[in-house]
């Protein structure tokens, strides 16, 4: 735990440290010596072209994909060198929202939310039920969805329930894989502000893989860009907009980005956030 206090540049607490990570499938190298820091309490937007390997890096960080070289440290612990117990302790401190929700289809919403809690903590059924309702309320859902099965939920509700499950153990880091994909702009906007609110109330660190320029403008503190297997830029929105890199120019100044750029110029819907 003492290692946790390792400070990154600028005196900020580094919670995820990715160094020279190489991931490939067969002869195809997807990530080529990628390096990235994620600081405590920030919302990091992670962008890149489709198929650039964004989800691959996320899956490598959470240990679902093997890396060929490099080191990944989470809370200062090297995941490759960690014992099973240490790894489990760290896995308890993160929550993951998969792209398709990955809710357990044979369990109800309530059971889905209670599953990780029940496995890790010894709590009474009353408290489990109350907490499930509290988590659902936090993600803006009514208690009436409790007894529904995932197959009966709409796309937006699935995402919200999946977020609630990711938050079930009060993690410190939340990984979100394209949280707003498949949502209408209103739903996506609500989801963004939900993430921002939860980040503030729970003090989360959020690692968000996204394509949604509106999300990047409204909620992300920092943006990291993956292209050609490398992180080509990391910094605030202003840095991205000022960059002369052709890919960044195309991404942030393209036709589709203009509308959201204009909107971002207007008063932010979330006071206290740029």
């Amino acid at each position, binding site marked *: 735990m003492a290692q946790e206090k390792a400070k990154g540049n600028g005196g900020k607490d580094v919670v995820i440290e990715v160094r020279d990570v190489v991931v490939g499938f067969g002869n195809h190298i997807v990530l080529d010596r990628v390096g990235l820091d994620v600081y405590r309490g920030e919302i990091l937007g992670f962008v890149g072209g489709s198929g650039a390997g964004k989800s691959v890096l996320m899956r490598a960080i959470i240990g679902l994909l093997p890396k060929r070289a490099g080191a990944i440290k989470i809370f200062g612990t090297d995941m490759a060198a960690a014992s099973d117990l240490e790894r489990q302790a760290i896995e308890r401190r993160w929550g993951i929202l998969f792209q398709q929700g990955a809710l357990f289809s*044979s369990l109800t919403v*309530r059971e889905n939310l209670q599953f990780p*809690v029940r496995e890790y903590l010894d709590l009474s059924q009353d408290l489990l039920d109350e907490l499930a309702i509290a988590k659902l309320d936090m993600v803006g859902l009514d208690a009436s969805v409790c007894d529904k099965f995932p197959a009966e939920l709409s796309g937006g509700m699935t995402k919200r329930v999946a977020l609630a499950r990711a938050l079930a153990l009060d993690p410190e880091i939340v990984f979100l894989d394209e949280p707003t994909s498949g949502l209408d702009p209103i739903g996506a906007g609500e989801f963004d502000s939900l993430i921002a609110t939860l980040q503030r109330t729970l003090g989360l660190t959020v690692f968000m893989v996204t394509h949604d320029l509106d999300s990047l403008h409204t909620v992300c503190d920092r943006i990291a860009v993956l292209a050609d297997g490398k992180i080509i830029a990391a910094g605030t929105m202003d840095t991205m907009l000022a960059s002369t890199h052709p890919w960044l120019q195309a991404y942030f100044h393209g036709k589709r980005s203009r509308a959201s750029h204009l909107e971002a110029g207007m008063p932010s819907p979330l006071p206290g956030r740029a």
Partner: protein
Amino acid sequence: MSDILLEATAQGEQLRLAGAGAWTAENAHNLEALIDSEIRRGGTISQVVIDMGRVDRLDTFGAWLLERLTRSFTARGCDTKVTGLKEDYRALIDEVHGVKREHKAEHHGSTLASTIASVGENIVSVGHSFGAMVNMLGALVVVLARIVSHPRRFRFTSMVHQLDNVGWRAVPIILLITFLIGCIIAQQGIFHFRKFGADIYVVDMVGILVLRELGVLIVAIMVAGRSGSAYTAELGSMKMREEIDALRTMGFDPIEVLILPRIVALVIGVPILTFLGSMAALYGGGLVCWLYGGIDPDIFLARLKEAITLDHFKVGLIKAPFMALIVGVVACVEGLAVKGSAESLGLQTTASVVESIFLVIVLDGLFAIFFASIGM
């Protein structure tokens, strides 16, 4: 977990509670017990002051328990105050405060009523699946009629692919199992017939039993387990991922594209497998008769020629395509009945195998009555 999480001091009608340490998930179990014992505290209390000043970590679990504490005291009519809360946690407490309490799971009725209800539901669902099978048969006939008038619409490649899967690749396992069954029947027959000195009639028994009943039954049951389950799982996962809806919207009839080639492959494959299986069983029977019963292959063959007629052989082979049809229709109906969840895929696959084996045996019984009455 020896750290003190909650301390209580009562002064007259005032109760002072002092929280301390980490009110987080790890301590939630202990904290819940402490808080519930405070909630149950007797005596008259009119004022409760909860000092959160020494709580150095708070998460949703702790926040909810604090909320539970304040709610229950407020509900008892006490004046409840929370002091010393760190500014960082204010948002979390407010968030939890807005949660509407209590959504009780609906209670199910008495066990007797629900048992009777589930019996009724089962009967209705048996009726439904019978209806679905008749539906599927009808749809197959319609598609067949369409194919007869436009033969080029038949998915020949797909059918050959399925035939490879359910027929050709099943040959080794079918041969092995029917061979063993033939061996076992012959061995049992010899063992028991010897007591009457009727060893030679083993040949009659093996011949008739294998050709009329066992060959086709074993093959049908194997195919139901091997290919019927695969059909259900394939179609079920296609249904889950909306592939079947996609086909339909592109103007293809899933029955024509997916189901007909599969069922035709079974109807062609099962008789062939039945023939091969019967031969393997006879071979196994002959081998055991020779090695265990001392009946020479020449004698076995001569006896077999006398014992069986072409009718026995025909009875087995006539049944085969009908068995195939039953297995195929049940597998496809169950596959299309899969709903969104992984559990439902498992349930339907189990149902498919159980139902098709059951129906195969029922059909075999009906055929036995039929052939007996026409004297075959």
